[in-house]
């Protein structure tokens, strides 16, 4: 400890952070090690007194914010907590959702479909759609928004809530952030981290794991991919 105070900062802070010491017997390392232990003990004691940032505390927060008029009071859906529990249970598992769907371009989306039939289509401008949702121009409900949104998949089927729950849980479990957008026609699931920038339709389908069978059934696969983009698969 006889060194100039600002000398050996790298060694001192490295030791403080618990890095491997290259000179453990030096007074600098010894002092930093002692400070580290003292800080750990102090932090541990203080942290033990800190209230838990629990779901109940979050609910109290939301309640107060609604009371202050800062949040809408109409959001009573309990979907996310349920999803979080399910996602935790499914974490680390690569999941596949089989859906009877048909791929179409947005311009070809039919106005109505049979109740038992499901549809998936790709939105070529998900960012615009998201902007519209966030600006309130669209009647939507957004649960979670992601950065660098690159893909929108819209699903219609007779049990949309259950389907959305499944796919969303699977996506979250796979570490893929999603947006669930409820519309009069069904639910849109906006997904990120799945496709490269400016992909063509075949690349999107291949990357998403959507493959058409002869009967028109489409396999919708949620990949366990990290990051925001992935290399385009070889065709």
């Amino acid at each position, binding site marked *: 400890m006889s060194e100039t105070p600002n000398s050996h900062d790298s060694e001192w*802070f490295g030791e403080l952070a618990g890095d491997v010491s290259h000179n453990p017997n030096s007074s600098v390392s010894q002092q930093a090690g*002692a400070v580290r232990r003292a800080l750990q003990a102090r932090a541990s004691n203080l942290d033990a007194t*800190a209230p838990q*940032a629990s779901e109940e*505390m*979050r609910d109290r927060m939301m309640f107060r914010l609604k009371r202050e008029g800062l*949040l809408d009071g109409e959001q009573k859906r309990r979907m996310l907590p349920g999803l979080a529990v399910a996602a935790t249970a499914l974490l680390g598992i690569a999941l596949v959702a089989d859906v009877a769907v048909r791929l179409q371009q947005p311009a070809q989306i039919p106005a109505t479909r049979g109740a038992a039939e499901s549809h998936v289509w790709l939105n070529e401008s998900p960012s615009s759609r998201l902007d519209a949702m*966030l600006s*309130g121009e669209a009647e939507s409900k*957004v649960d979670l928004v992601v950065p660098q949104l690159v893909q929108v998949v819209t699903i219609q089927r007779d049990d949309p809530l259950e389907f959305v729950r499944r796919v969303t849980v699977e996506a979250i479990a796979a570490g893929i952030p999603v947006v669930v957008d409820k519309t009069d026609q069904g639910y849109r699931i906006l997904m990120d981290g799945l496709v490269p920038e400016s992909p063509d339709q075949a690349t999107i389908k291949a990357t998403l794991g959507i493959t058409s069978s002869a009967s028109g059934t489409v396999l919708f696969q949620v990949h366990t991919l990290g990051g925001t983009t992935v290399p385009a698969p070889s065709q």
Partner: protein
Amino acid sequence: MQYDDIMTLIRASGSARNAGVKALFDGSGREMLRFFIHQGVSPTDAEDVLQDTFIKIIRGANNYAGQGNAQSWFWQVARNCMTDFLRKRGAYSDKYAPFDDEHSDLAGSVAQFDVPGALQLTVDECVSSGLDAFAKDHADRAYALTLQMDGASIEHIASVIGRTATATKQYLSQCRKKLEPYVARCTELLTS
């Protein structure tokens, strides 16, 4: 979710804002509570300060003009709310402002802190005693060192204390310098 995206949500309305608040709570609530506690807010009051922080974040979000610094802005609001709270409780000294160089020298330049009975203590006991005194005088600096001890990145520490990464490195170095007199008495124990 990135903090800038959380800010986008909070600046929106309806369910988007709800989602942003939840994301911010899940991402930073625990750490903000910890920060408040380390700065002297009682455990029973920490939740109130956190709620005040979120209220001010929502009310001020549309005035936020920063680009890519939403996390720093959230923390700035948290620091201000904590300071306001402590001031109202009479637990705030104008000589003390968290992470403010100009107003944080409560103890001035301590020549050397006299750890009571230092030579009868172990090294860890001596340093712990000195650290307690240091944290009492410089809670902000003790917390910055705690974050470093935790292995937090410079960028994260910078957000919490409201500085650039470069300034944060300098600040941490100053923290070490200011800690030095508080543990100087322990030197003899280290070398013995």
